[in-house]
């Protein structure tokens, strides 16, 4: 309980709350002698109740006037989840449908489907830290690792912008790795690469990536949004075809990922349903324990303080109304 006051000066008045212990709220009436008459437990209990109600009423009023509030803070909690970087391909082909056309009518582009499903995925992952990066010709740092769902949603939405033509997977991965690097917590790290094609990774870049992946364990998922009719990850080239990265970039990128010696899975999706299945699969796999920080917002407790004061004063008022006099006031001298 991190309680604070907006005006701490009012605490000077707090000793006033002890007054009800010394003085009664009831009007005292003289009585010849109560000696020899035993105290009645109910009366004693009531007496203390009224005194405490008085203390509470004054203290609550003072705290209310002082602007009692609970400070916003973050608390550490443990849940299931991972630190995920979404690495999204922004090449222009993503704006086509799975059939490779510009979307018409009710058709959904690959990026739209991916966006919708990713947002759904993020919404259901409570404790994940998510970062977003995009790449086409060059990588773009869209959103640093954050637990702020709204920001992640907005970043995923931003994939909507028309992309560029080129697909530079290598530099995109390097950026995603950098983003993971900046995070020092022991949580599970995940990079989800969403693309509809692959490209050749430069030998030098390959070496750098290899070294970077070797530094710390990272789970890599490649969600390959395959356009119908194009070669897939596992397409083995015909004997007469060339088996070079240039000719079959997907197959060679997959091979490269497999050669990294990290936990890696590729999902090939040819329609939105397959994308959904793949994302669900990723969600199932990434369930390692994670410590996360929950932010508890600043809370104004003034109203509650006043409510408590009113409740206490109602008790006192009831007691006041229940007061009777030995001698009617009209007869008092």
């Amino acid at each position, binding site marked *: 309980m991190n309680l604070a006051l907006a005006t701490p000066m009012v605490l000077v008045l707090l000793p006033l709350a002890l007054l009800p212990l010394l003085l*009664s709220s*009831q*009007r*005292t*009436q*003289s*009585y*010849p*002698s*109560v*000696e*020899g*008459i*035993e*105290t*009645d437990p*109910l*009366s*004693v209990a*009531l*007496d203390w109740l*009224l005194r405490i109600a008085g203390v509470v009423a004054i203290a609550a009023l003072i705290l209310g006037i002082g602007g009692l509030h609970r400070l916003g803070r973050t608390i550490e909690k443990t849940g299931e989840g991972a630190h995920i970087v979404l690495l999204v391909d922004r090449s222009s082909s993503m704006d086509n449908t799975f059939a490779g056309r510009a979307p018409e009518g009710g058709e959904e582009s690959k990026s739209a489907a991916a966006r919708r499903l990713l947002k759904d995925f993020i919404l259901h992952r409570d404790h994940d830290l998510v970062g977003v990066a995009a790449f086409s010709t060059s990588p773009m740092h869209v959103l640093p690792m954050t637990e702020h769902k709204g920001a992640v949603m907005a970043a995923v939405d931003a994939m909507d912008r028309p992309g560029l033509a080129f697909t530079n997977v290598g530099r995109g991965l390097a950026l995603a790795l950098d983003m993971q690097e900046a995070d020092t917590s022991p949580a599970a790290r995940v990079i989800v690469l969403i693309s509809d094609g692959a490209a050749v990774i430069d030998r030098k870049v390959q070496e750098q990536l290899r070294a970077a992946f070797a530094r710390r364990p990272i789970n890599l998922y490649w969600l390959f949004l395959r356009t119908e009719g194009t070669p897939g990850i596992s397409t083995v080239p015909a004997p007469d075809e060339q088996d070079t990265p240039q000719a079959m970039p997907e197959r060679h990128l997959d091979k490269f990922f497999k050669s990294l010696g990290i936990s890696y899975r590729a999902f090939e999706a040819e329609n939105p349903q397959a994308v959904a299945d793949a994302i669900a699969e990723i969600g199932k796999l990434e369930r390692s324990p994670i410590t996360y920080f929950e932010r508890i917002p600043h809370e104004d407790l003034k109203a509650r303080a006043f409510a408590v004061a009113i409740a206490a004063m109602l008790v006192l008022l009831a*007691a006041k109304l*229940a*007061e*009777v*006099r*030995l*001698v009617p006031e009209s*007869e*008092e*001298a």
Partner: protein
Amino acid sequence: MTTANAASAAPPPVDLPYRIIWRSRALRQGAHRSTQSGAGGLFRDLATLLEYRDPRRIDLRQTLRDPFGTLHVRRFEEKSQIGVTMLLDVSGSMGFHGASRKMGLAADLAQVFATAVRRAGDTFALYAADDHVHEELSVPPTRSRAGEAEMIAALRAYVPKRRSASALVEAARRIGQRRNLVVIVSDFLLPDAELEALFETLIGHDVVPIRIVDSRESAALPSWGLLELADLETGRRRLVAMRPSLKAEWQRRIEARRSFFRTLAARYGREPFEITDSIPWDRLGAHLAAGA
């Protein structure tokens, strides 16, 4: 006098008859039976002239009947005065102002007694005490009227302080050895031991306890409600959640205290006279005239 009650607002009677069943030993002539022989109206006995040299009262018939020729004289009782002392409790509890003012009633009593005693030719003394004897309120034994009005005025104006009535015993010791008619005016809300000590001290006197009670302190207690009571003597505060069962319990306690007092009073002196809210003068007169 600010009593609201109509009965006690009635003017106090000028005279209050009081009678004693014992014989006064005082030499001074007065209105009460005494051990002195003299020129009273009541025949007492016969004595020889040698025993009682008063030839004016030679009883001829008895003298003639005597074969030895002794001269007989009739002896008559002489009426003597007595001392009347009022012990007035001015402790805190007497400051209670319920249906009437206890101090007002006490002042009324003092006034009437002072007048009645003076008219009867007896000496009147008044000692007011709480935890000490109040000299300014007390009157030494006197037959004079001087100071009477001041005494009454002082009593009426006196507001009892938060003190106990522990000095009543000391006041009782001031009365002296000669048998007095001692009127104790108090609410008798004393600790049992003090009450007993008071009566013990007054054992040689004719004690008339007059107990002043207020209906508001017992009989007319409210049945329901919260009462914050402050004890007039100890100043102790007590919140009371009054309800019929508790009221009955209080009345039982108050009655127990009263019956203890009545037993004690009956053992040491006359039956106590109780005044509730207003003074029933005729009943008080009858009570005093009964003499026992």
